[in-house]
């Protein structure tokens, strides 16, 4: 019988701890599939963040290290500089990447560090029970913005891809979503391209994955996908914000 669908070899058999309906699992699969497709799993080293994905080291079937909160890009820099042959990636949430780790994120991008960052934007701090993140939307209720995010006091949410696109060095910056088959397919393409660029030595790549956190948003998985579409995507438009090596389109 022909196999039409199977788990990528880039994922272990460990049972994931993510909540039902959480899109972390989809993002994991896309990363593992990209590594498999490019035949890079055996040479890859992943950096797990502090956040719900902290246990990513149990799920990716490659060498892994767990970094301090926000420091994954610095750890990845050390790994890559020490062993440029390795394919080095980080997998980080929005608190990790866009709050405590802002300096590491921006500076590794500014250096054009030849690493790949998978950035999970779920507009909230998941692991610690749903506090406001730098990406929390205006008016969004969280544990630490119980009356809704008041942007007159906390400012507007950070758009990471747009911010990094002001830098000259990044090779590839894309924002994708995993709320529909169509978007998941596009996300797969973007993540694969990011790893391909790294493999070709083209420099820094980051793929922002708009994701859900049904648990801390306090909604069902279905409602979460709906809210992602109606509320998140208008503020976080999907697309490619930088592609230094894009093939020029004719005419």
């Amino acid at each position, binding site marked *: 019988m022909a196999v039409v669908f199977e788990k990528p070899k880039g994922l272990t058999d460990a049972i994931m701890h993510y909540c039902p309906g959480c899109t972390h699992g989809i993002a994991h699969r896309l990363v593992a599939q990209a590594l498999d497709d490019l035949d890079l799993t*055996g040479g890859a080293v992943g950096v797990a963040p502090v956040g719900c994905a902290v246990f990513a080291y149990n799920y990716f079937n490659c060498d892994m*290290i767990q970094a301090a909160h926000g420091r994954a890009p610095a750890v990845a820099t050390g*790994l890559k500089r020490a062993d440029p042959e390795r394919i080095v990636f980080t997998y980080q949430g929005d608190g990790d990447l866009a709050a405590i780790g802002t300096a590491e994120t921006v500076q590794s991008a500014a250096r054009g560090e030849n690493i790949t960052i998978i950035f999970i934007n779920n507009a909230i701090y998941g692991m610690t029970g749903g506090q406001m993140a730098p990406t929390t939307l205006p008016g969004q209720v969280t544990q630490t913005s119980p009356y809704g995010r008041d942007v007159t006091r906390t400012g507007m949410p950070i758009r990471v891809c747009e911010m990094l696109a002001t830098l000259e060095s990044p090779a590839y910056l894309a924002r994708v979503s995993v709320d529909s088959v169509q978007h998941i397919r596009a996300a797969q393409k973007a993540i694969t391209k990011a790893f391909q660029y790294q493999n070709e030595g083209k420099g820094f790549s980051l793929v922002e994955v708009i994701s859900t956190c049904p648990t801390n948003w306090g909604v069902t998985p279905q409602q979460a996908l709906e809210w992602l579409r109606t509320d998140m995507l208008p503020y976080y438009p999907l697309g490619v914000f930088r592609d230094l090596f894009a093939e020029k389109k004719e005419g």
Partner: protein
Amino acid sequence: MAEKVLMKGNEAIAEAAIAVGCRHYFGYPITPQTEIAAYMAKRMPKIDGCFLQAESEIAAIHMVIGAAAAGKRAMTSSSSPGIALKSEGLSYLAGCDLPAVVVNIQRGGPGLGGIQPSQADYFQCTKGGGHGDYRMVVLAPSGVQEMYDYTAWAFEIADQYRVTSMIFSDGILGQMMEPVELRASRQETPQEGKPWALTGTRGQREPNIINSLFMQPEDLERMNLERFVRYAQIEAGETRWEEYLLEDAKIVVVAYGAAARIAKNAVQAARTQGKRVGLLRPITLWPFPKQPLERLAKRVRAFVCVEMSMGQMREDVELATRCQRPVYLCARTGGMVPAPEEILGKLEDASHGCCV
């Protein structure tokens, strides 16, 4: 005999690191240690090594973590305020059992403090620096040759026990020039000697995971206890100190690093006055040379701690001697350095106090 060249202490550290195969240096500028970064920036590109100026001391230590995880000898250096920032990484290095060398060329504090030499990070560094139950090896050179030799030793200790070793020094020694015999040679443990390194599975082994997270307290306790077995081995095998004129001494000066150089002069001067004074110089601040102090406490009258901090080391001397004898303190702080006369004055107090 190996080549002898005139070098600054900071340069000697950098040169020794390179000599023993360190090819990955990450740092952030801060006085008075910047010569280390400058030296690395010059040399590393010529020897296929990596010098990277990080965006902060925090980033630099986490880059060290990455390079160490890849199985390579890696180093960072800083001075007091920067070491405070590195403390997060120091704890993670311990929790991940990664070998690394960190240099602290201390300056006066607290806060931004000053840029003059100090030993006031003693508590911070000898007690670990970061959060959690762990130890860090702390080596205190007192001359430029020792800056060189102990750096080579620091890498050996780090690799052998999978710990962080710190070169704990100050602006005097960092900036001072002395002739140095360049006698270290490359002894790096190759990656094969580090089976835990993240070198890629190549599909031929199970993934290596470097991690300090253990959700079950039983597991975390087991990891910590394993670590403390290694710490005990370090205490047994690596504790070092220098003894000077101790045979007949009745008063023992305890001092390390730059303070020990001055203290030695004071001891010599006291000897010419006929006083039975000697010096014990801790070389490893952790592990602290408790045993010789304990032994001395049985036969001497008093101890005098000379330090460029407000008695931080004195607490360890009191502990080691179990307060069996008075422990006097000759301390300067904020970047001030004790003068030999001040030490002689303290020796005078000590001898009156206990009638030598």
